[in-house]
């Protein structure tokens, strides 16, 4: 009657080019980093972490488009109209949807300047899996 035993989610953190992270005090940067490290550690210890990566900045990013025949068109940077860029992600394998939301909420509550939570919007997307056993 119950479906799959665990569920995988991609938890994505975005970054806005307007974020003045460079203006944060070193203490605030350290506090934020520690918060993230702690989440990472917890996910690792619980056997929930499948993968986690940080992405390079827009300066190192290319957009490629091709018709499969002529040379591909390569442009610098991310989509020019993008206000939020994908900064990094965790792929987790958890017991429930609620647990994925909880991880995202803790990530969103990471401290910003002066220790106040950044409340950054975190995107949680289920990863496609096998069909349910009813078939």
């Amino acid at each position, binding site marked *: 009657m119950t479906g799959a035993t665990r569920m995988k989610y991609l938890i994505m953190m975005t970054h806005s080019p307007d974020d003045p992270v460079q203006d944060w005090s070193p203490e605030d940067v350290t506090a934020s980093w520690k918060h993230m490290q702690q989440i990472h550690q917890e996910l690792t210890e619980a056997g929930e972490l499948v993968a986690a990566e940080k992405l390079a900045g827009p300066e190192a990013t290319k957009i490629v488009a091709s018709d499969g025949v002529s040379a591909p068109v390569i442009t610098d940077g991310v989509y020019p109209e993008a206000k939020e860029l994908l900064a990094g992600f965790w792929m987790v394998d958890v017991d429930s949807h609620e647990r994925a939301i909880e991880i995202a909420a803790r990530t969103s509550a990471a401290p910003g300047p002066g220790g106040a939570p950044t409340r950054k919007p975190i995107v949680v997307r289920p990863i496609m*899996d*096998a069909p*349910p056993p009813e078939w």
Partner: protein
Amino acid sequence: MSTGADVEGLLRDLAPQVLTVLVRRYGDFADAEDAVQEALLAAATQWPDQGLPRNPRGWLVTVAARRLTDIWRSEAARRHREDLAAALGSATPTDVPDKDDSLALLFLCCHPVLSPRSAIPLTLRAIGGLTTAEIATAFLVPEDTMAKRISRAKQHIRISHVPFRMPSSDEWTSRLRIVLHVLYLIFNEGYAASSGPHVARTDLSNEAIRLARALRLALPDEPEVTGLLALMLLTDARRPARTGPHGELVPLAEQDRTRWDRALIGEGIALLTAVLPRRAVGEYQLQAAIAAIHDEAVTAEQTDWPQILALYGLLERMTGNPMVTLNRAIALAMVDGPAAGLAALEGLATRLPGHHRLDAVRAHLLEMAGDPDGAITHYLLAAGRTTSLAEREYLTGNAARLRGRRLMRTDRSTP
């Protein structure tokens, strides 16, 4: 000379026996389980080349016990050392675990302090004798992740001071139910994944069947154990017809029934027949009975829907599970028509909020009722909500098929 496959089968059978000897003798399940894993790995590399030792179980017990002392010696606290020295003095390599010990081990791995999801990998390793790498592959996660999950589960058992013994009679039924649920989930995990890109995971179904067979040998008088085994066999029998040549899902009504495994169906039905006249009927027996009715129908049209409807009614009363109500609605539609089925879906929206299966069933019943527009809407809603790739393809395919039919009609009607 033994082949690697022979050795692997033998090791898998011996794994829980060796572990029970160690746990019984030294008391520490978590460390003993690690030690047995290492002994199994050593045997898997040595035996195929050097031949089987004269007493394979004794060999494994000796190697695992030696490994266990290494583990304990290396523990910084060394708190176990004295106990260990005393325990080692009494060790004899010919210990033979009794049947109850292996069962107690299974009850330990499926203890209520663990979520079924933690119990699954632990059971597969400690009872099934699978390696961490094999379990990680089956669940599509890195080996490190799975290793952490298993050690977390064992840690949980340790700090909860779960005793190594058979459940008492007053907790027997509820404890057995958890064990059955864990085996059922293992089966489903493998069965669900036996299409598309994850074929390797089908091994989990076979493993669940193996464990259920062993459990039935140990508990022949528990009708639900037999019911679960029958359910697994009767479901697994349909696996060859469940997917098309490109890995696409084929619904039950459209499956090529000549590809169903008759031997498995025969075995499942025989098990069920032997057990049904006995005492209280449980939910696995009922589910197995429903599977048996499907399996016995030579064509989809010959399915005995009134009987399936009656069984779902019993199951619904027994479990109160909204997914059962959903399945019952399909059976009702097959007996009394789609309108009756659709009426039975009323009230389910609050119990299965946003669940794709509800939309999928509604779409199917609307299609039966001759409402293609409503069906398309709900097929697409379900497609958007499912997290299964194969199912999404099937649902969007259904919507496209109905749209195509409607277009053809429009074409014909325009001059």
